[in-house]
């Protein structure tokens, strides 16, 4: 997995690319740190280029959600497709994290 961050006025958009798995733990930790540091109140994870997520990857998204709550920021998942969308749907992640199309 790799990512790019684009900080706008009120919103930081983080675009994740590739596969988010068990092996990306350290990278996601770094990303969460960057999201907590930047000034935007809304932190959006754009998942449109993410091809695959496993259960450990979902776990990391949930850690991000908690860290953003601690930093008093909004956390939003956006534009999941394919397998990622199916996994988020089956696990009803929308019940605990806002999901936008």
């Amino acid at each position, binding site marked *: 997995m790799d990512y790019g961050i684009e900080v706008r006025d009120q919103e930081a958009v983080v675009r994740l690319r590739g596969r988010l798995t068990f092996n990306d733990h350290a990278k996601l930790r770094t990303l969460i740190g960057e999201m907590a540091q930047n000034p935007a109140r809304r932190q959006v994870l754009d998942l449109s280029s993410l*091809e*695959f997520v*496993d*259960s450990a990857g979902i776990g990391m998204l*949930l850690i991000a959600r908690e860290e953003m709550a601690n930093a008093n920021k909004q956390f939003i998942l956006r534009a999941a497709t394919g397998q990622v969308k199916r996994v988020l*749907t089956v*696990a009803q992640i929308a019940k*605990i994290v806002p999901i936008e199309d």
Partner: protein
Amino acid sequence: MSVEPAVRGTPDGLESARVLVVDDNRINRHLLLALLERGGITLVEQAEDGQDALTRMEHFKPDLVLLDLMMPHMDGFEMCRRLRADPRWKALPVLVQSSLNRAEDRARAFAAGATDYVTKPINAVELLARVRIHLRKRALLRDLEQYHSRTEAELALARNMQVRLLPGPDRLAELEAATGVAVDAHFAPSSELGGDFWGIERLPGGRIAVYLVDFSGHGVGAALNTFRLDAICRQVGTTALTPAEFLAAVNRRLCGLLPSGQFATMLTGLIDPVAGVFHYASAGSTAPMLWLPGDAAPRLGDGTGLPLGLLPSASYDSRQMPLPPGARLFLYSDAAIEIPVGTDVLDETGLAAMIARRIDEPDSGRLLAGLLEELRATGPIDDDLTALLLTRRG
């Protein structure tokens, strides 16, 4: 690098290092002895030639050999070759010290198995520095090997414990005899320990409770969680609760225990043979697959539901599928549908198609084995894989 004075001792534990000095010249041996002593190495044995050295190896068990090449009876090249032929001495550092200084002599020594090479006249500082480096490397390697074998033994023990959480062949045979439901099971953690587990129990009235759990991640952390969840499942008990109530109760207990980012998916089912129904509830598990005699493809259930451990107030839907005599039910962990296929994954539809191809196979063991074989041939499975095939006798 400088030579530390001997009075300071060796803080890195070299005082317990054992060095065998092999040289036919007594003066050379004494020189090396004095030199090693200055470096804090006092456990030194001497040998006069290769033959003598090989004999002394047996009881002295050196950590390093300082080896001359030109010696009577057996020279250093031959001794080195014989040493390396013995598996016990394969990794032993052999530091050659020789007056032979041509490139081809060095090459011959390394070909015979030497670790390192210094030429005479000996430079004391250099020799001692090399001795220390090799001894330190050997000590580190030994620590690693010890750590590795201890870890391996502990993981093997833990794996045994984990396998014993699962129903064994005796219990499954007993279940089949009493209820007419046969269970074929496959459990394969992706490393020594896994984050999957499953259970099956006979309930009053001929009913059967079955569950399959998949913790997020895999490895030791996920495995520890399986022990925790097994205890909770026993505490909650399957007897009086519907599958949905059972999941909600397990979830409430698990929520306070799991650190952020960890969760489990779980499917809990109840087979009611009198009504011919499979009642189930799912916490983000894979979709159960079920087929009746005459079906051309499996019917997919609904695995939707919030995984366990995320939200204490989560509630779960009660769902059901028909399970008349002759029907089969297939439960599996998500490793089976996350096998990469091109840029996508196999997914439930791909797995269902695989089942459809062997849906008329009467032998359930053969059906499961064939299915697993096809899954493994599809692509790498890099997560724990559990698969359960339940067959209701017709």
